């Protein structure tokens, strides 16, 4: 059984933000919600690294563990989905998630947050029929049901963002690391060329 994951190769990410654009367009994500974001570390300094983050589809997902209505579920592909019909908008998943993945459409007084929204791994919703209009409007597209990977990773121009079965993408990443010459060379250069 596949266990789907994202893996962002920070050596390759060029902060073009195309993954965000792809995600927003494919899933009709409303204003104010970013299912995916690119964070640039040490921006403008030597050793600058960019990394694209979204829901990591954790194996032991903290959001799932704290949800008071137990509306999260993990699919057989290892994708963590949440049911917007059951969601009460309490914000607990947002407290628990280390990556800031859960997003809320509203942010108003008296705890009005609306239904939580997060990356679905382009796998639609847990309770809607695959590819139905209801699923499209509620959760966005269901590419996984069509045998396609999430669009953010598929569109990545430098192939920095990898999506797929965790064994396969980690193999891809490992072979890249080996070809780059193993350990630290490209990371945290202290001087430009050798000594």
């Amino acid at each position, binding site marked *: 059984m596949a266990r789907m994951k994202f893996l962002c190769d920070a050596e390759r990410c060029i902060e073009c*933000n195309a993954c*965000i654009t792809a995600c927003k367009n494919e899933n009709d994500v409303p204003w*104010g919600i*970013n299912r995916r*974001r*690119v*964070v*640039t*570390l*040490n*921006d403008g300094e030597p*050793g600058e*690294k960019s*990394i694209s*983050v979204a829901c990591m589809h954790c194996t032991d997902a*903290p959001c799932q*563990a*704290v*949800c*008071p*209505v*137990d*509306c999260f579920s993990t699919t057989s592909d290892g994708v963590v989905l949440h049911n917007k*019909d*059951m*969601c*009460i*908008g*309490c*914000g607990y998943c*947002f*407290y*628990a*998630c*280390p*990556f*800031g993945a859960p*997003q*809320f459409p509203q*942010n*108003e*007084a*008296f*705890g*009005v*947050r609306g239904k939580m929204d997060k990356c679905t791994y382009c796998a639609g919703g847990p309770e809607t029929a695959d590819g139905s209009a209801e699923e499209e409007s509620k959760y966005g597209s269901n590419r996984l049901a069509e045998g396609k990977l999430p669009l953010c990773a598929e569109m990545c121009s430098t192939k920095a963002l990898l999506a797929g079965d965790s064994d396969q993408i980690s193999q891809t990443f490992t072979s890249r690391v080996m070809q780059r010459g193993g*350990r*630290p060379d490209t*990371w*945290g250069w*202290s001087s430009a060329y050798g000594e």
Partner: protein
Amino acid sequence: MLNSENNTTDEGSRRKRRNRRILWTFVAMWMIVVLAPIPGYFMTTDTVQAKGEFTDNPRSAYWGEIRQGGSGYTTDRAPEAGNLVNDSGEIWRVLRNDTISPYGAWLIAFILVAVAGYFMFAGPMKVEGELSGTKIKRWNLYDRCIHWIVAVTFFVMSISGLILLYGRAVLIPLFGREGFAGLAMFCKDVHDLLGIPFAVALVMMILPWLKDNMFRSEDAEWLAKSGGMFDGSHPSSGKNNAGEKIWFWLLTIGGTVLIVSGVILVMPNLEPLRNTMITMHILHSVSGLILIAVSLGHTYMGSIGVEGAFNGMVTGEVDTAWAKQHHDLWYAEQMGEEAPAKAKKSAKSSSGPAGLSTGKVSAS
């Protein structure tokens, strides 16, 4: 015979010598195999230390810093979006799921069992002797209204809060996830909205009741005797006894924590930091659970635990015999007849023959 014997010993010693030679050769070979690489080992260690690569991996330091909550630039305008990893949510998860929930449940269960056990073994506290039939005012209309507003809002918020905390474990197996989600949504809305009347009423209750809940000298004796819960005595007290005062101060402190943390939690539009919300949630659930547990004791005492107490908060009036037994100093003050010291004496005599005490009350 001798010759042949010599021959065999010669042959035996030769074999022994050969075996020894083989053994030593093996030992020497083994020594070479084991020891030969050691100088090279020393050499590599030297070069590695000189370069300082293995002792300080820049890559691990870089990502270690990010793991500890470092942040960078992002086009995402959401608060804290530049923060890649914030693992304090994991602490919150463990505290909420594995510490606060089970210990809170045990605390409430313990109080319930203690109250039920006390009721079964000791029974309700009755007014000793006959009721005088004469009533005196204990709670005016404002006191009663504000008490019941606080009580009802507190009760509804306790139930809705408990449903939000324990519903997943207790109610989902009963209603199913879909059924429970509707209830939880309702509870969340009620909990969020009812906080406002609760907060206002609590402040309006605490302020006027403050002066009657200051600890005084007689409270030490009352506490030492546990308010006569176990020995049937009636230690003297003013308008509120030490137990009521402790409940008042618990409610004041816990209620303030609940209100402040609740307001922060219910105002996501003010964009509090994630760590602030996590801290507030822990404070909110801990103080809520403690107050719920203690309120069970208060509810028992105010309803079936002490005869006459409930009517006091409904009609505002109590029987003079009840007042004399439970709040002798306050009773004396109300009558305006005796000094506190004298009242204390009369309170003690009230545990004497019933007829005497009733007689005295009706006389007054």
